[in-house]
């Protein structure tokens, strides 16, 4: 068992987790900003389709990318920014596949029962989660001064995310008419489609009985 380094405390691991979440959220919001910023329906749909493709590719590539970071540098972005590292319990870096097993499959196991595997960090004496126990790893502190950098990174990421979110809201307000129009159209289509006798848009706005315009009485009789 590793005795040279200090095991990372739960608050440090939580901090690195938050940084990773904020990083993911930032990229997600960037894509959303591009989609929401489109003023025309066609451009919005194009950017939505591109976003869907990017999200799918990102979901496939991210586990491999994180595993590469862990095997090469000892941690994912959150861990690197908080000065912590993932190593084998006997010492030494993880191999690529062990890192993949830990981060992808191990996280799945930890999250199975109300995320009990993650909460186990508070119970275990060495602050190991279930994904650490099954992959024989431990999270250690490499640089105590990096804690400050971790806190600053988290604060900066939080600010950036808030800024991007407010930009999204502002863009949404600018294009609200477009979204409301689309939503109205789509709901109308769904509603009319399930009716027995659906009406076309022209029919929906047609009066059943056109009221007759009454004759205007002669208020002023002709002169003479």
């Amino acid at each position: 068992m590793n005795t040279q380094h200090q095991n990372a405390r739960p608050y440090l691991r939580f901090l690195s987790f938050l940084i990773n979440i904020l990083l993911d959220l930032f990229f997600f919001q960037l894509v959303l900003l591009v989609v929401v910023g489109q003023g025309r329906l066609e451009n919005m749909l194009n950017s939505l389709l591109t976003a869907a493709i990017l999200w799918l590719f990102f979901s496939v590539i991210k586990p491999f990318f994180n595993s590469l970071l862990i095997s090469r540098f000892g941690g994912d972005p959150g861990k690197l920014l908080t000065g912590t590292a993932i190593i084998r319990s006997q010492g030494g870096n993880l191999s690529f596949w062990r890192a993949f097993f830990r981060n992808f499959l191990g996280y799945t196991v930890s999250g199975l029962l109300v995320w009990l595997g993650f909460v186990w960090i508070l119970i275990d004496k060495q602050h190991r989660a279930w994904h650490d126990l099954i992959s024989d790893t431990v999270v250690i502190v490499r640089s105590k001064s990096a804690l400050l950098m971790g806190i600053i990174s988290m604060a900066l990421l939080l600010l950036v995310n808030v800024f991007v979110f407010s930009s999204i809201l502002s863009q949404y307000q600018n294009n609200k008419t477009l979204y409301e129009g689309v939503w109205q159209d789509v709901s109308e289509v769904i509603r009319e489609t399930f009716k027995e006798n659906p009406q076309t848009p022209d029919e929906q706005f047609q009066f059943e009985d056109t009221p007759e315009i009454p004759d205007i009485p002669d208020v002023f009789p002709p002169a003479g």
Partner: protein
Amino acid sequence: MPDFGKYISNSYEAIKKNKWLFVYGLVIALFAGGSGSGGSNIDLSDGFKNIPKEIPEDIPEKTSLVLGTYTSALLDWFSSVPVTTWLLLGLSGLLFVILALAVRIVLLSWAKGALISGFEKAFNNEEVDLTNTSPKGISSIKNLVIFAIIASLVATGLLLGIFLVWLIIFLIFHVTGIEELRIIWMILGSIMGFFTFVVAIILFAMIGVYAERLIVLEKYSPWPAWKKAFSLSKGNFFPTLVTGLVNNVLGCSIGCASMIVFVILLGIPGFIILYPSISNGTTPPLSAIIILMVAFMIFSYLNLLIGAFVVLLKYGNWNQLFREVLIKQES
């Protein structure tokens, strides 16, 4: 014939003493598709009278009549997107699905290997935890995955073989024009084929049970494990069949019992909360929806735990049978 009472009580004691085994049981219960419950079919459709029960067939025609400005533009956009973009979307989706499937297979193989080795330690009164069982699971992943592929290929080959034999004989009778023999073969052949298929499936399940334990505990390679498992299954067909039946009856009984308890403790209160809204045809209040969501979450997690417990009982029983069969063979 095995002493099933002893099997079940030994398995139960091992599970009680080594709760870490539940982690592997949870993985298998969730990803193998089996669960402890007898099935949870909650029908809420009675109260929602306005929602059509059948999807009308003429939706495309009706929809095309009522399209507005934006929905027309949506259709136009759809047809204007290049084919390469749709191909790219399809490819990325396919990659995502392949990765998810691969992860599922690897996770299951790991959990099976670790659980089998965990029970072996438990029955030998050794300490069982994640750190001393997971490495065994990791080292078994490759061979268990290869075995699963071999087993699938053999099962598919057999199924195709049965169908081809049936088809060839059917065609022979069809070509010779003997109508009566053709009809008799169609019925008899189908019945024989069905029973052959069922017996084959049962045999393959038995082979799977023995082969997994041969791979994990006796360090066999996949193909020799398949062959040895086949000979063990043939030689101990009835004890293995009865053990399988006992396991399934156990699983169903626990599942049904737990479902009855859930209906009483969660289902009935949930219905009482929802009934005023169902009878009035209105949307339930937010507090009721939150309570129901929490109740559903509790039900899901408890159901998963019960499923894991059933998986553990089954694996414990299989491990004990495997050891008895091996000892009998060696003696």
